[in-house]
């Protein structure tokens, strides 16, 4: 059997069912069976933390938050009890989902919160965590309410608390709301934010697994990753490994398809589904138009032309081979009517707004890229602008900064200009000021100033 053959959904199995958020409906569908099974096996030694970790390792599960790091391996970086002494271990569920084009975690949070909680419980057991947090982005107000209620229900029914189900295991979960800042999705910025600070990414090492929240060993995992853990303990590592293109790209995966498609939405498919099949799931390109380009992993991923994405397996290694990345599996489809320079300018606006401001190349570079792109699409571009844009971009990437935000910010600019240079040149050819040195346009400054002057949103 091919690991890519379509199967009934697993992660999305309960979505669309009436009252899918309630604990009773979750239990009626077999939910919390794994959590019970594990806890009941603790005293007899049938279930140990190492056993859960080994299952996750054997499953080949890679992080669904963006970097694709092997989940089980990350867990083993947490120092042993002897080494960490009295320090508690924290598990943080990353529910900050803010990467443009990504909306899978929201669906899981709003429709099946107990699936996430059960994944967190099993991960907490594996990592000896007594207090786990869910960091949810501030904009998901209802999502936070749903999670809060789910946590309260789980406490009430005895799935959380002290001595859970008589096993001797203690576990509390706290829902923590962010307040609007993309960078807080980066794991060390998330930790700073949880600690009550500005979301400034930390210099690594030390990595969170060694020194994270409040200086204690901390594992940060994405909502979808933790949801997968639940199913791995349910069905076994072999099952998970059997779904997907190969042993490095395993398991069921959520794909967020948006932009110019007939049926935008979240689709579950085996990791590595070929591009054409995924596009077909989303109903194809809108209005029967031709495909122009695809951003395959959230706005931070280099865009691919229609020719480049043909036949590409949509997974971690397939997209790296195609010189892009899988990232958050936010797949943004652009049809033939798309104005690429404007799309790139739009993405540059996002990064200029979201830079945390710690590193000079990123803080200064992101607004500069935007200013130059703005003047090109506003018909005031200079002939030298495109090379200058590439030059600035190259000075912003390649490890010049504390986190990879800066690399993400330049990916759309570099890929857009190299692959669709003609479209940028067409703007510059029509430019009213092609030759002369000119001041930076006031346009961007206006907009950011607009937001700032308003004093309520900058």
């Amino acid at each position, binding site marked *: 059997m091919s690991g890519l053959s379509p199967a009934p959904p697993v992660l999305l199995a309960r979505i669309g069912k009436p009252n899918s958020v309630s604990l009773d409906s979750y239990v009626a569908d077999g939910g919390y069976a794994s959590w019970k099974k594990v806890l009941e096996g603790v005293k007899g030694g049938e279930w140990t933390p190492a056993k859960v970790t080994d299952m996750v390792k054997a499953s080949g599960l890679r992080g669904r938050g963006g970097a694709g790091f092997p989940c089980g391996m990350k867990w083993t970086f947490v120092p042993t009890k002897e080494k960490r002494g009295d320090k508690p271990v924290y598990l943080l569920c990353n529910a900050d989902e803010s990467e443009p084009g990504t909306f899978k975690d929201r669906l899981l949070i709003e429709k099946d919160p107990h699936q996430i909680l059960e994944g967190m419980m099993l991960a907490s057991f594996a990592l000896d965590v007594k207090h786990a947090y869910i960091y949810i982005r501030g904009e998901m107000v209802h999502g936070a309410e749903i999670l809060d209620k789910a946590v309260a229900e789980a406490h009430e029914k005895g799935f959380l608390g002290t001595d859970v189900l008589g096993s001797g295991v203690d576990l509390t979960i706290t829902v923590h*709301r962010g307040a*609007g800042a993309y960078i807080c999705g980066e794991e060390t910025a998330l930790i700073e934010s949880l*600690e009550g600070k500005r979301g400034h990414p930390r210099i690594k090492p030390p990595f969170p697994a060694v020194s994270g929240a409040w200086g204690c060993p901390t594992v940060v995992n994405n909502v979808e990753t933790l949801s997968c853990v639940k199913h791995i303990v349910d069905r076994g590592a072999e099952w998970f490994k059997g779904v997907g293109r190969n042993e490095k790209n395993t398991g069921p995966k959520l794909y967020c398809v948006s932009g110019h498609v007939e049926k935008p939405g979240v689709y579950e498919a085996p990791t590595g589904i070929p591009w054409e099949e995924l596009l077909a799931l989303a109903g194809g390109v809108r209005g029967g138009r031709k495909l122009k380009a695809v951003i395959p992993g959230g*706005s931070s991923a280099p865009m691919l032309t229609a020719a480049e994405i043909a036949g590409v397996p949509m997974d971690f290694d397939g997209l790296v081979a195609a010189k892009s990345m899988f990232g958050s599996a936010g797949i943004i489809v652009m049809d033939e009517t798309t104005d690429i320079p404007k799309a790139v300018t739009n993405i540059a606006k996002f990064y200029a707004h979201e830079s945390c401001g710690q590193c000079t190349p990123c803080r200064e570079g992101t607004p500069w890229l935007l200013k130059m792109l703005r003047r090109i699409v506003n018909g005031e571009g200079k002939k030298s602008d495109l090379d200058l844009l590439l030059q600035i971009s190259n000075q912003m990437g390649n490890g010049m900064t504390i986190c990879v935000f800066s690399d993400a910010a330049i990916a759309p600019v570099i890929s857009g200009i190299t692959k669709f240079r003609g479209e940028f040149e067409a703007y510059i050819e029509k430019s009213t000021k092609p030759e002369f040195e000119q001041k930076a346009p006031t346009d961007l400054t206006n907009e950011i100033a607009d*937001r700032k002057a308003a004093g309520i949103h900058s």
Partner: protein
Amino acid sequence: MSGGQNLPVAEQAGNPRVGEHGALSCGRTLSFSRETRADFDRLLGRYPTKQAALLPTLWLAQREWGWISREAVDYVATLLELAPAFVWGVVTFYTMYNRAPVGKHLIQVCTSISCHLNGAEEVFHECKKRLGGLKTGEVSSDGKFTVVEVECLAQCDKAPAVMVNDDDYFVITKDKLDAFLGGLK
């Protein structure tokens, strides 16, 4: 140091200031209502440090007063034993803490890429136009509306996406704007 003349007026006049580190104070005392105070007390037990309760406490302050004033900053700083300057630094980092009063309906239009591909900028500009040429962040004269531009709301499949206060609205295209705005009473 003697330069009395350079001291701020309030201090010269001997007006007491709020909080331990009064530099940012505006001189008016605020405090939480009883219910909010109870919510605050519950918060503290969820974190190993007091400081970690800062974001949730600011949320409580915004719920209580609608926005985060300098007085609210001082009050929160006192509650959590933090410097007001630090609290203010945190408030200004995050976009969702309102640093000025907003209209009854805070209309937040996403203009990130998937919404952009579906005409979001036009929706944003048109929205302000139909509300009488409202500027970004401004409160309409009847106090009902404020319009701001926001980044991706993780609703990209329902683009253009708009959030009004805590509620999500989808596929707000230009031709649906009148009905959408009319629905906000």
